[in-house]
């Protein structure tokens, strides 16, 4: 009976079979699709994981932008310099290659020489060439934004600091490259019989002091810092920085060609930063780095020396621009007899985190070298600062053997970490109550990489606190902030020097301390002939000149005729006098820009003495627009006429990183990936198994 019993049920089942089979087939289809979807879901997870390993292993740089990981544009740069006499004109090409399959907007924050003047910009995309135009900064931003949204190709270059600029490029097509060409000029430095110039390739990450500001609506730059009360544009001066091995292969390379027409016989050309090769051809010398393409992790430095006995003592150049005459004059005071002066030497050393690695070793060497220059009549002190300021001695002490031994020991134990709170250190170093009576000179030597974001506030403080002291800056590292070095020394009525590697320390310091013995020329008076606008002379006020330094003057006026008179006081109360005949001026070019840049600097300086911001803005703006220069208030913008990107296609944004300076230790680390796909795998696995179980049960139920 038992076997018969289930039959009716079986038959019932049989009756329902046709329908169930259809249902089953349907469910089978669903499960198949589910399986496919699972695969699709899990596959990108693994892809993601393996991509991440690639990012650590072989090092394709991925910038996390708006939630997606994508390769940043590949950056290559090319510098073509032409040095004519005292002015170097550079054609800089920045090429951004978009390797991704998306339209991209690239933002690149990069350094230029601190005394450079950007005066032209050209955007090249494929066959098209668009000449950039100078605009008021906000106007340029609006034009660029409109073009970006309309899908037109556009480029914009603006100044964040005198030595820090930002290039923006909208609508780089996937798989293509766009080039931005910048033309800038800079005066060549001349010091102690040696000409030199510097092309910065990267920057040392700057310390941003101050309390964070409440999030204001600002333009995206990919900067790592948030705006603070002290540095409201912090996000614009802190581009992401990575190590060389983290960028795509071939990215962040620079090629350099220098065409040197010195105008005088050149004895020797050298670079303290790279191996170079030179080819001489008549009056010009062609210089290239021996290695070809260079990684952009250290500044390129070049120097050349005139033949012995042919060092220039004076030079005059003239240029006519838009009906006006501009004159550049250089004078080198000779060496004077010197007497031994006693001095109080205050050594200030930056021991902030940005100095860690190679920089702090250079700085320690520099301090030890400085201690060696002290004679027993001198007095000294050492101040170190990072987040806090500490002094070796409560006040300056006599340079006895005992004190020096203590100081050497102190210096050898200096270590770099923490922030760069520079203001208290400057205050401590310049504090007048510490000035010891009975010493002829009070000298403050500031050893730093200048990696700060609040430069202007510090200059203000130096000017206020200086008193009788003189401030000298020693720039350390592969990419110091030269704007800070030069200006701090100018406000401090001293001079500056740079140290790029350990082997240079001795030589550069010897030169600096030789100069520091006494100013070679003080109380300098300049008299221009009639027809010259003496008020607008650059620099506005001539400071003290140190040994070997030339006097460089630029002025605007009528046809160059008559005599330029310069008078000053040598140490030991002697009067020094020189006249220059302007009639024999050699033709020059770019002098009007030198003059305009000097005027801009003058106006910006007057902020410190209380010139209202609106007036500063107005004057700088009109100078920038008239001479076609990038200033804090004027930017270059180039915009294509026809849209290339359809409105419905997305535009990704990426910040092109800068490299960390060679030899520096990383101060900023990206957050690592700290989750595994385990929960997702387990969840999908369990769901799949549950589904299979349901299926099997169902089928068994059907068969039973």
């Amino acid at each position, binding site marked *: 009976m038992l076997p018969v019993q289930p039959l009716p049920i079986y038959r019932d089942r049989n009756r329902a079979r046709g329908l169930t089979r259809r249902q089953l087939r349907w469910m089978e289809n669903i*499960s198949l699709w589910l*399986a496919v979807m699972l695969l699709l879901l899990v596959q990108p997870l693994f892809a993601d994981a393996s991509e991440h390993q690639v990012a650590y292993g072989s090092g394709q740089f991925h910038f996390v932008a708006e939630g997606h990981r994508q390769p940043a544009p590949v950056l290559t740069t090319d510098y073509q310099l032409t040095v004519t006499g005292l002015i170097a004109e550079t054609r800089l090409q920045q090429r951004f290659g978009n390797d991704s399959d998306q339209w991209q907007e690239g933002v690149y924050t990069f350094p230029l020489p601190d005394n450079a003047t950007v005066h032209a910009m050209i955007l090249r995309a494929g066959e098209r060439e668009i000449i950039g135009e100078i605009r008021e900064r906000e106007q340029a931003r609006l034009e660029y934004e409109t073009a970006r949204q309309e899908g037109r190709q556009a480029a914009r270059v603006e100044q964040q600091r005198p030595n820090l600029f930002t290039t923006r490029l909208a609508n780089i097509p996937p798989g293509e490259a766009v080039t931005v060409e910048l033309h800038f000029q800079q005066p060549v430095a001349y010091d102690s019989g040696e000409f030199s110039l510097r092309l910065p390739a990267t920057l040392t990450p700057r310390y941003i002091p101050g309390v964070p500001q409440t999030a204001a609506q600002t333009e995206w730059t990919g900067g790592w810092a948030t705006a603070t009360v002290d540095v409201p544009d912090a996000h614009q001066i802190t581009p992401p920085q990575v190590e060389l091995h983290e960028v795509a292969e071939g990215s962040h390379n620079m090629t350099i060609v220098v065409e040197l027409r010195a105008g005088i016989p050149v004895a020797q050309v050298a670079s303290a930063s790279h191996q170079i090769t030179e080819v001489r051809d008549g009056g010009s010398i062609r210089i290239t780095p021996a290695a070809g393409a260079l990684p952009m992790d250290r500044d390129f430095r070049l120097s050349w020396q005139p033949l012995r006995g042919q060092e220039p003592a004076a030079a005059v150049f003239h240029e006519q621009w838009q009906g006006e005459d501009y004159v550049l004059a250089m004078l080198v005071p000779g060496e004077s007899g010197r007497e031994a002066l006693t001095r109080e030497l205050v050594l200030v050393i930056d021991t902030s985190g940005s100095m860690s690695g190679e920089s702090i070793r250079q700085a320690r060497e520099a301090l030890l070298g400085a201690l060696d220059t002290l004679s027993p009549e001198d007095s000294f002190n050492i101040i170190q600062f990072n987040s806090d300021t500490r002094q070796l001695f409560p006040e300056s002490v006599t340079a006895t053997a005992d004190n020096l031994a203590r100081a050497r020991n102190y210096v050898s134990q200096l270590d770099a970490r923490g922030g760069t709170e520079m203001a208290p250190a400057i205050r401590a170093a310049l504090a007048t109550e510490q000035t010891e009576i009975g010493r002829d000179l009070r000298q403050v030597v500031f050893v730093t990489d200048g990696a700060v974001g609040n430069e202007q506030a510090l200059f203000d403080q130096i000017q206020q606190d200086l008193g009788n002291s003189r401030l000298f800056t020693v720039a350390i590292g592969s990419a110091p902030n030269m704007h800070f070095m030069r200006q701090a020394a100018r406000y401090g009525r001293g001079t500056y020097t740079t140290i790029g590697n350990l082997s240079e320390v001795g030589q550069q310091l010897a030169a600096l301390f030789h100069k520091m013995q006494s100013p070679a020329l003080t109380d300098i008076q300049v008299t221009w002939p009639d027809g010259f606008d003496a008020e607008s002379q650059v620099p506005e006020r001539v400071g003290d000149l140190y040994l070997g330094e030339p006097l460089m003057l630029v002025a605007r006026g009528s046809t160059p005729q008559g005599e330029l008179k310069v008078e000053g006081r040598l140490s030991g109360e002697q009067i020094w006098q020189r006249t220059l005949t302007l009639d024999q001026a050699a033709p020059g070019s770019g002098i009007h820009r030198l003059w305009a840049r000097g005027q801009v600097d003058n106006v910006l300086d007057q902020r410190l003495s209380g010139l209202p911001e609106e007036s500063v803005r107005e004057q700088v703006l009109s100078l920038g627009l008239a001479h076609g220069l990038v200033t804090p208030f004027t930017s270059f913008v180039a915009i294509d006429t026809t849209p290339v990107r359809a409105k419905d296609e997305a535009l990704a944004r990426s910040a092109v990183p800068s490299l960390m300076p060679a030899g520096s230790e990383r101060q900023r680390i990206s957050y690592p990936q700290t989750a595994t796909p385990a929960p997702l795998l387990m969840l999908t696995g369990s769901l799949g198994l549950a589904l299979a179980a349901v299926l099997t049960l169902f089928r068994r139920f059907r068969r039973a």
Partner: protein
Amino acid sequence: MGRMTLMVVTLSAGLLMAGLWIPLKAVVAQELLTLAWARTQAEQRQTPPWPWADTWPVARLQLPGRSPALVVLSGGHGQSLAFGPGQVNGPEPGGKPATPVIIAGHRDTHFRSLKHIQSDDELRLQFSDGIWRRYRVASVRIVDSRQEQIDLSRYDQNSLVLVTCYPFDSLDAGGPLRFVVEAARDFPLAVSEGA
């Protein structure tokens, strides 16, 4: 019909196994690492836990709670995080902390218990010198890794920073948020004057 089910079963089982393998590996590796750590301490040199490992133990970290101390590996890359928390920044081998110590760990495995961490909790850390250093949690914050990097200059050499992913029960392994525990060295009162 049977084939379909079999496919689903195999695939799901595979996924589940892969999912279970990750935490299992994390637990088993810690046992092996404890041995390697003992050898590191005894011989005072870097000892890879297994011959082909590209990481080695650098410290031991005791999180609050009763779980045993975790062996911390060098580097914050995926290779080391799979087996233990990774030291992203810290002292040179054999040295004392001269810079802030930054340790990252997976939120699904070793650093799962950070979910319950609170201010003032005690953390202990041992480097190869064998001394257990005590730290107190000063703050816990959540950051967006797209907008922020770890800024070493914010911390001094007496800082310990633990990093893991956030939120803890998320399924997304590539999320941008990070859970950051900042702790400061807790000196015994008598010593703190001289230290």
